[in-house]
């Protein structure tokens, strides 16, 4: 099996060779039916005996709530918002996605960095 790759330099202290699980990303606009399909996938995988975990935007323990709260206020500027989402993503990547993959889990990602890239490009990055 080929070693898993990162888009950039990866994370400090993470050896790609130790990442054994599978990462499945579900992208698509609002209302496209992502959540429903993810539910189906998770049920199916777990019934077959594959340990599964679901991640998604604004769900980090570190700043998920703060980010959701800040979105309501509508006061954040483009760069701030982008970095806020990056923080939220990095927390889940380092503390949920990578450890789960190391433990051999299937990780289902309800939106991934492609959504963040798409939004930031629309906002002028």
């Amino acid at each position: 099996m080929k070693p898993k790759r990162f888009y950039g330099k990866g994370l400090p202290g993470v050896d790609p060779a130790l990442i054994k699980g599978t990462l499945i990303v579900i992208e698509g606009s609002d209302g496209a039916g992502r959540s429903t399909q993810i539910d189906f996938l998770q049920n199916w995988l777990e019934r077959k005996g594959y340990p599964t975990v679901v991640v998604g935007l604004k769900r980090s323990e570190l700043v998920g709530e703060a980010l959701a709260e800040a979105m309501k206020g509508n006061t954040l500027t483009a760069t701030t918002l982008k970095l806020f989402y990056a923080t939220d993503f990095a927390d889940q990547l380092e503390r949920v996605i990578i450890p789960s993959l190391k433990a051999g889990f299937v990780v289902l990602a309800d939106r991934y960095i492609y959504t963040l890239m798409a939004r930031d490009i629309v906002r002028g990055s």
Partner: protein
Amino acid sequence: MPTNEIDGKLIAVEGLDGSGKSTQIRLLKRWLELEGYKVFFTEWNSSDLVRQATRKGKKKKLLTPTTFSLIHATDFADRYERQILPLLKGGYIVLADRYVYTAFARDAVRGCDRDWLRKLYRFARKPDITFFFELSLDVALGRILEGRPTLKFHEAGMDMNFSNDIYESFKIFQGKIYEEYGRIFKEFPAERINAILPSEQQQANMRDIVKKRINLPGFKLRLKKGEGL
């Protein structure tokens, strides 16, 4: 880093804790204000967002070098886009007590990639003048530690597991930041201030440099008739 359409000037001070940079930039601010220039002061402090997250992060040991760095970058971006940039565009002299070089130093010590850090802060304009306060590590540590102050967990680098003793950890952490600053100001230009000199001498040197490098009369507050200071 972007520079166009900006009339203001950005002056930053950097240096170790205990180097006296905050005192000096406050004196510089007082001088510019009293001379009647448009001045705004900003510091590398933590907003509610960072305070909440670091408190939570510390309690539950959630923060990694990457998330620590990203959350501070988020906080800085907020301050940059809402205060620093608009005031620079409005023709102010903006004085910054610590700037992105603080993140470059601190986060690199925590293990973040140096090149990644420079990309992370690419949105931020380079200062017109950066003052780097130089003094030996021993003197800086002496100034900070003689009063046995209450050090904060992250400030002392306790997350790095250098030592269980918070003062010992602080010393090791500051030593590494000291080395990293040396590297940074080989890469980026800075006016070096000898932080051992008497305070008024340091201030006189800074004012000379500011007068030489910034056309100050262009920053006079324009008062309407009958309006006082």
